[in-house]
């Protein structure tokens, strides 16, 4: 008997979990099962010839199952720890190359809010009204932000102080994202283990640890909502799967807690709000309703919704907007079905049909009427603009130009998928196919998640982040199945050997097959058609195994190489600091932004108002600590349009706007000297479009293009363009740099005319080292009441022209000569 039992031992937990629905079984259980399966076979032992399975390579036979289990657990723990280390390490490029600084734009606001939280306390933070943002309107920050990220950072900061290892808030904020990336890898491991085997789980954790799609939003220094949101997403999904499998209200509650935390942290929580109901709905449609689903969904929905309503920004949205109606609808449907099931158990079949019919008609009529009334009366709001634009992709360009102008909201180009995911995107459909093969409840979740996120990732570049977890999971499942098929050492019997064996024994074909299956204990591939057949399936030769495994290992190496290269070159730029190479190869740091912001901080009055385009609002508030007119929150379109109008009009029109808003300084970004292409002249058309949206009579986009429809800044530029404030501010004194040679704008590739630009209402205050940031001071009204244009003419030595406007500008009315 020993040989027969021994060989199944050579293939422990790797094989059985693929075909049984409980992957958590330990090897000893499986061995016991296998042993009993074979032993319980009711056949006379004398007639069975013990068939020794051949192995492609020898395996040690003297190790007990408990040792195998323990070693596996230890290995998994060590591997997971290393994966977390790799995840944290690959996100540290920016910190090592430059310094520990907050990146980009939005994180500066989050950082400022976190500073308020830790310095002034929770109540000050929760009720914070910021009068320096959106001057003169102010912003009630406490109710218009997602506090989850700041509160998390605050908790960590307090905890570190508690254990006497104080870390300053800036470093907590910078290093938060890599820390949570390690946690995400762990959660993804747990999630994938529920779907498939622990080996697939480890692969998924490794993939998501270094996949660039996720790294792009979670490098050290990128202190943004997505840093913790993906961890919470995977945590919520893992708990949901556990809740659904066990039917425990405790897991439902944990799902709700993760969900509530996610609502506090990121606006993309709507994805979870619709994924889980969709999953439940599909299960109902497939006829897989059971009480576990009911308990899990109901406990998640009630606790989750009530916890999400605690966030002031969300408040009553879950019961008033269309995005949340799906969850409510499925909730109601589940209650209905559960009630009907209970009644069905109490009443015999035919009578039940009658009751059911009456009941269903009644409920349907009532709820439909209620829904119609509520929607028509406007009590339930339709889809918010930014979610509607996901379905109707042309909507934003026409109706909400601010959303259309953000570069992250553009559709995804095909190369982005490969750039962000490399080989995972190829294995992704294979993994979804494997989910179709087994079609357990939890694998249906992967299928739905994959389909939905594939659509969204195609619509908006920013949503590549949402598809990355499911791609990692599905690719890991496919990859792991492939590896296991070729690593499994058992060699299947060829057809002749099988028939020979069965011919010797006087038993039915069915029993022979049963023994063969029990002894074989292989993953059932179940191919149909040409690959199907009655023979056994598996890999025969050692050479095939070696070839395939080595190629797959090469894939893995290339994946790591690609991910590290992408992270290093594309996603580790702080955006606040730029770097380039000197001719001799040494690094040249371009620190213009911080130079300019600190000039403002040290050389202007404490309450001087800075006007700039909304991109830089948060950075100005964070680094220069001055009031701004508009910032990245973009909640007031008219205010932004006002700034756009001021930037795109000539000085006569812009000056009253500037004075009305108490603007002291204007800040523009100009990349023409260096070749920095993210400057304001390139964004200028969006300023014009947004202003045109508010004042279509005064600002027209066509006036800024040449006759032939080109966007020109050289001598072909239209008068409107040449006189606009933005053009003047960008190119003021630009030709002086070139000492008589034609002034070349390196970004547009055009030559700026060398006739000097004259600014009447502004004084140049500061220009940074590489001319990237230019700051102008707004002149106050003239002390003796002259028109500012006349002042510059006077100082330029020109004779004062008496025009109607200038003579009427005197304080108090018209000048009149005394009657002679």
């Amino acid at each position, binding site marked *: 008997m020993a040989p027969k039992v021994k060989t199944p031992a050579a293939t422990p937990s790797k094989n059985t979990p693929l075909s049984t629905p409980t992957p958590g079984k330990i090897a000893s259980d499986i061995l016991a099962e296998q042993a009993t399966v074979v032993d319980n076979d009711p056949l006379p032992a004398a007639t069975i010839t013990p068939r020794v399975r051949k192995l492609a390579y020898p395996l040690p036979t003297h190790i007990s199952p408990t040792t195998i289990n323990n070693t596996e657990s230890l290995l998994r723990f060590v591997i997971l720890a290393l994966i977390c280390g790799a995840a944290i390490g690959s996100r540290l490029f920016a910190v090592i190359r430059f310094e520990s600084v907050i990146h980009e734009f939005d994180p500066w606001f989050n950082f400022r809010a976190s500073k308020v939280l830790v310095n002034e306390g929770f109540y000050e933070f929760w009720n914070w009204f910021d009068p320096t943002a959106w001057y003169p309107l102010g912003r009630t920050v406490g109710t218009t932000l997602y506090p989850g990220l700041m509160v998390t950072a605050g908790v960590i900061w307090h905890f570190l102080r508690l254990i006497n290892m104080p870390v300053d808030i800036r470093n907590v904020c910078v290093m938060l994202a890599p820390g949570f990336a390690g946690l995400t890898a762990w959660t993804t491991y747990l999630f994938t283990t529920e779907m498939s085997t622990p080996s697939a789980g480890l692969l998924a954790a490794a993939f998501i640890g270094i996949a660039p799609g996720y790294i792009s939003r979670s490098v050290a220094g990128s202190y943004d909502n997505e840093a913790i949101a993906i961890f919470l997403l995977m945590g919520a999904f893992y708990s949901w799967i556990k809740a659904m499998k066990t*039917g*425990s*209200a405790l897991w439902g*509650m944990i799902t709700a*807690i993760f969900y509530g935390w996610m609502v506090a942290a990121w606006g993309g929580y709507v994805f979870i709000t619709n994924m889980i109901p969709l999953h439940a709905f599909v299960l109902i449609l497939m006829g897989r309703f059971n009480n576990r689903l009911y308990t899990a969904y109901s406990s998640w929905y009630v*606790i989750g919704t*009530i916890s999400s309503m605690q966030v002031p920004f969300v408040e009553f949205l879950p019961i008033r907007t269309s995005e949340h109606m799906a969850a409510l609808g499925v909730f109601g449907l589940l209650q209905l079905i*559960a009630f009907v099931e209970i009644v069905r158990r109490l009443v015999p079949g035919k009578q039940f049909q*009658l009751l059911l019919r009456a009941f269903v008609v009644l409920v349907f009529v009532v709820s439909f009427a209620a829904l119609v009334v509520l929607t028509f009366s406007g009590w339930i709001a339709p889809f918010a603009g930014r979610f509607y634009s996901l379905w109707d992709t042309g909507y934003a360009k026409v109706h909400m130009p601010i959303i259309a102008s953000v570069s992250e909201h553009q559709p995804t180009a095909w190369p982005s998928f490969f750039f962000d995911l490399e080989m995972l995107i190829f294995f992704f459909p294979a993994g979804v196919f494997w989910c179709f093969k087994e079609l357990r409840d939890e694998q249906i979740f992967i299928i739905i998640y994959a389909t939905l996120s594939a659509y969204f990732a195609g619509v908006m570049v920013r949503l590549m982040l949402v598809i990355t977890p499911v791609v990692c999971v599905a690719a890991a499942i496919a990859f792991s199945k492939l590896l296991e098929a070729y690593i499994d050492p058992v060699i299947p019997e060829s057809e002749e050997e099988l028939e020979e064996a069965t011919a010797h024994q006087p038993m039915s074909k069915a029993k022979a097959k049963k023994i063969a299956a029990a002894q074989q204990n292989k993953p059932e591939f179940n191919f149909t058609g040409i690959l199907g057949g009655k023979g056994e399936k598996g890999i025969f030769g050692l050479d095939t195994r070696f070839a395939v495994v080595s190629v797959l290992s090469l894939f893995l190496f290339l994946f790591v190489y690609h991910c590290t290269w992408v992270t290093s070159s594309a996603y580790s730029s702080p955006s606040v600091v730029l770097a380039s190479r000197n001719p001799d190869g040494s690094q040249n740091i371009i620190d213009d932004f911080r130079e300019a912001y600190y000039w403002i901080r040290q050389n202007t009055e404490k309450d001087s108002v800075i006007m700039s385009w909304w991109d830089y609002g948060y950075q100005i508030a964070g680094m220069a600590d001055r009031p701004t007119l508009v910032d990245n929150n973009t909640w007031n379109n008219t205010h932004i349009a006002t700034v756009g109008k001021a930037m795109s009009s000539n000085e006569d029109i812009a000056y009253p706007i500037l004075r009305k808003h108490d603007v002291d300084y204007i800040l523009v970004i100009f990349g023409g000297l260096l070749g920095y292409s993210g400057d304001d002249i390139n964004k200028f058309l969006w300023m014009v479009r947004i202003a045109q949206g508010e004042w279509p009579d005064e600002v027209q986009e066509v006036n800024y293009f040449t006759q032939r429809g080109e966007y020109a800044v050289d001598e072909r530029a239209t008068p409107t363009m040449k006189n606009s404030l933005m053009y003047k501010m960008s190119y003021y004194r630009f030709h002086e740099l070139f000492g008589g040679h034609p002034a070349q704008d390196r970004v547009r590739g055009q030559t700026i005319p060398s006739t000097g630009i004259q600014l009447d209402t502004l004084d140049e205050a500061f220009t940074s080292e590489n001319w990237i940031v230019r700051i102008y001071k707004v002149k106050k009204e003239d002390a003796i009441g002259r028109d500012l244009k006349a002042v510059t003419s006077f100082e330029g030595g020109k004779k004062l022209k008496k025009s109607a406007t200038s003579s009427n500008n005197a304080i108090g009315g018209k000048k009149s000569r005394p009657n002679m």
Partner: protein
Amino acid sequence: MSVKQPPSNPTQSSAALQSSFQTLLDNYQTTIPARVKLIDSFLLFIFLSGILQFAYRVLVTSYPFYAFAGGFGSTVGQFVLLAGLRAQVAPGRDGEFKEVSQERAFADFCAASVILHLFAFNFLG
């Protein structure tokens, strides 16, 4: 009592309906154990409480809206948690709930209810 053809005769259909109800009630009395009946009575109480709150909001006022939302939310929440508990202790549960014993179900129910009421209470203020 055959209901195979759509009832052409109203009295016949209403009589059929009535006898179905009667069967339902009789079966309920006899087959359901006492602990489940206890849960059912609690469910009924919560249901009525929710209806009362909603009626108050519709008929009288919705003035402290947070209070209404908190109160109504906690009745709905408690109702479904209790319904989940009922499903986990009712006869025939063993087929569906393999990993959750009845005692564990009760503990889950208590924990979830505490968290639910914690959030609802926070909402009131």
